[in-house]
């Protein structure tokens, strides 16, 4: 082990948060004094040099009023070192909530920061190449949405987050690296275009049934925002004075989409996954029931959002 590496290892052990590469830690993360580092900024160094010039001038001209002014400015600036420290100290990263995104899309992750003791001003969170400025009032919490760049399907470790502040005067920069033990699942990208699903039994899948034409519905339920207006049972609604929605008979075996990994022979695995992802998505949008057969597991038959996410997760996690 080279000297540099051993030094680095020791540094990482003694001051775990000085470096970006620190072990991941469980939430909530509270910023304690051992993980906050403070150094002067470039402006701070320049300002310090100017203070020294002022000090020499005041001493040389034996001008005590100027010396007092220099001392006052110097003390206020030195004190701002603690200001930068206090801007971070005591801040908590309480929770992280991740949305869903397909590979290549931006994944929105909400970081929930809390200021349990006092207000924190002038905070800046660096994620990848973007910065997010925020401040938190005392005794409140704040949800900060950040966009993560995704490339591949599967688990994505949350990148190291750098929380920093140059509060109050921009002379000192305090920073702390956060590596929360959180990973988010990135769904596979869908292929943009391709053939419709091919079942092993049916050579051509029927187009999604046009339910509007039949009256064969199994029941009614109240309309909710987002429901298709085409499914509104107008006659029943008129009788009940509320909008009612037709519930269809469970689609018959013919309507079940059977999406099978093994049916896509001759394609490389990633293309298979992308095609299956597109089929799952289409089925979900069309209100279909579908079954997904993968090499190691079989999902469904089922319909709805939970089934969709289960299928996408399974696809995302395929080896």
């Amino acid at each position, binding site marked *: 082990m080279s000297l540099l590496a051993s030094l680095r290892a020791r540094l990482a052990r003694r001051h775990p948060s000085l470096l970006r590469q620190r072990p991941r830690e469980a939430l909530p993360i509270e910023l304690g*004094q051992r993980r906050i580092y403070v150094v002067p900024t470039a*402006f701070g160094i*320049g*300002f310090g040099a*100017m203070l020294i*010039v*002022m*000090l*020499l*001038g*005041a*001493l*040389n*001209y*034996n*001008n*005590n*009023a*100027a*010396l*007092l*002014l*220099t*001392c*006052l*400015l*110097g*003390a*206020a600036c*030195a*004190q*701002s*070192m*603690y*200001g930068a*420290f*206090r801007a971070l*100290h*005591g801040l908590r990263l309480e929770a992280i909530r991740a949305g869903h995104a397909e590979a290549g899309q931006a994944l929105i992750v909400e970081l929930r920061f809390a200021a349990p*003791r*006092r207000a924190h*001003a*002038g*905070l*800046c969170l660096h994620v990848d190449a*973007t*910065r*997010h*400025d*925020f*401040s938190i009032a*005392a*005794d409140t919490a*704040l949800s*900060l949405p950040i966009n993560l760049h995704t490339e591949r399907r599967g688990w994505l470790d949350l990148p190291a987050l750098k929380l920093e502040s140059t*509060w*109050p*005067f*921009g*002379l000192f920069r305090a920073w702390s690296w956060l590596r929360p033990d959180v990973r988010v699942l990135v769904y596979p990208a869908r292929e943009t275009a391709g053939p419709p699903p091919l079942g092993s039994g049916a050579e051509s899948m029927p187009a999604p049934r046009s339910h509007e034409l039949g009256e064969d519905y199994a029941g009614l339920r109240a309309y909710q925002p987002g429901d298709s207006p085409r499914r509104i049972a107008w006659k029943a609604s008129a009788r009940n004075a509320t909008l009612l929605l037709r519930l269809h008979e469970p689609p018959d075996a013919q309507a079940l989409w059977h999406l099978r990994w093994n049916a896509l022979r001759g394609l490389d695995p990633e293309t298979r996954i992308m095609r299956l992802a597109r089929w799952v998505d289409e089925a979900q949008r069309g209100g279909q029931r579908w079954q997904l057969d993968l090499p190691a597991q079989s999902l469904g038959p089922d319909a709805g959002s939970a089934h969709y996410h289960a299928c996408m997760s399974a696809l995302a996690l395929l080896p």
Partner: protein
Amino acid sequence: MSAARVPAPRPDARSFGLLSLTVAATLALHATHLPLWLSPPLALLLTLRWLGFRRGRRFPALLRYALVLTLPLGVIATYGTLFGRLPGAALAVGLLVLKLTETETRRDVHIAVAFAAFTLMSALLFGQSLLQTLLVCAALAPALATLLALQPSAGATRAILKTAVLRLAAALPVTLLAFVLVPRLATPLWGAPGMQQARTGISASMSPGAIGQLLVDDSPAFRVGFDGPIPPRAQRYFRAVVLWHFDGRTWTSGSAARHLPLEPLQALGPTQRYTISMEATRQTLLPALDMPLQAPAATRFTAARTLLADRPVDHGLRYTVSSATAYRLQPHLGARERALGLQLPGDDDPRARALALHWRTRYGDNPVAIIDAALHRFHDDGYRYTLTPPPLGRQQIDDFLFDTRAGFCEHYASAFVFLMRAAGIPARVVAGYQGGYANRAADYLLVRQADAHAWAEVWLRGRGWVRVDPTAAVRPDRISLGAIAAAQGAGARWYQAAWLVGLRDRIDVLNRLWDQSVVGFNALRQRGLLTRFGVDPQRWQSVALALGGALAVALAFGLALALREPAGERDALGRAFDRLQRRLTRRDHPRQPGEAPAHYLTRVAADLPAEQAAALRALSTQFVRLRYASTQPAPRLAVRDWIRRARELKP
């Protein structure tokens, strides 16, 4: 909250406004000594630039370059050089305002703030009075607020200004510590500071009108703290310089007088011990009460017993002297002194000489009678005391004595000594200060430049040099009231109202404290102070230890403050709950893990007697309401009430 993709936000109108305010304050503080062609255009440029920035305009780069080139040329045209205090300040202020024409990035604002701080400091090189220093320190607040406004999500402007002021106030203890401990330089590193500065106060020569300029200058010349009571006004003559040589226009010390031996002094009564705190004069003359016995350290006597400092008084000086108010100075006059004391220029002023000869023949060898004749002439023959005398011609003394008959102390002293010399009595002009103002708020005497005065000393056989004040013959209230009051006539002015006098007294006490404790805190005083705390200023290890120790203590103290959490009302409620819980736990009512506060208190209440149970239940309800009912912090009074009732509960 905002998510910005640019690496650094550009300065907004608010931070530019605060920066403009800082620069305006800097310009105002420098305005008194900037050349007249510079300050108004700079103020105009600043205003226009501020308005332009608010409208999102950029300043034309070509015009900026032109101005940057013009400024040094203008400074050179005015002062002949770019270096030195005045041209330097003009250049710095000009460049600072011009820097505002180029503020497109945060970095530009940073540079401007740093440069403004430097320029503010340079304003103190032109005067370090308490007021000036306070104003300059106050101007730091908008400077720091500018930096605060550059911070992301900085908050409201009022909050920013408040933060800036609070930061400055919190810096005061460390400021004072640093001020006391920073080692002072015994000799300057470069330059000879203060050399270009105009000298003030009584100077070593008296040309017509020299004292007249001083008489309208209300600034303090020096302050005197007497060990005993302040002597009466008529005795308060402070000699600064003795003028032997007259060339018909100007009185000077004369080069011949430099080689005379020290005049022997015999005190004839009690002596006065006092300490004088001089304001900066940039010359070496030191006033002392008529007549000093010994020269204090770092000063020396001239032959005629006026004090000279070893170095020009650039930053104020304190010295302690003893003086005798009744004395005999040089009872035997040597030939050289007599020759100097009778010197007259050429054959000017024939009418004055004739008058003196007339007295000489009339009174013979009776100098006292001749002096009386001269004083009577001043008193009775229509002489006026005025600070604005008509101009005198070539024959100065004659014109004054026989034609204009109007003038102030320098005219009377000059004419009187001329007459004495012409009549064969050795005489000399003494310039200094007379009177002064006894501060009622503190026991000291304030002597202003306006108290400058000139009088005469004549040598009488057996009595030595005797002080004669011919001005007193014309206007006795010049001695009892002061020059300006004498010129204006008696009667109380609006500014002499009692409350105003009291206020001015107090302000002057502050000024005196400031001069003594801050402006006059030099290497010598620092050494004295450090020695008292066991630091040996001669050994650098000792000084380094003291500096390092103080720095370490300040750092640790700052860290402790930074780690301290505010004890807000919310915490007060939480702490009071914890106290209640501890007390209940001691009474065998511990709180179960995971038990909610309200549930816990209600459960304990079930085990208590009825009255206390009701109180505890009320506390429980109230606690939940205070803590959780509103997103706003609980009202302070309600929290206090809860704490009091929890304390009163005796389970």
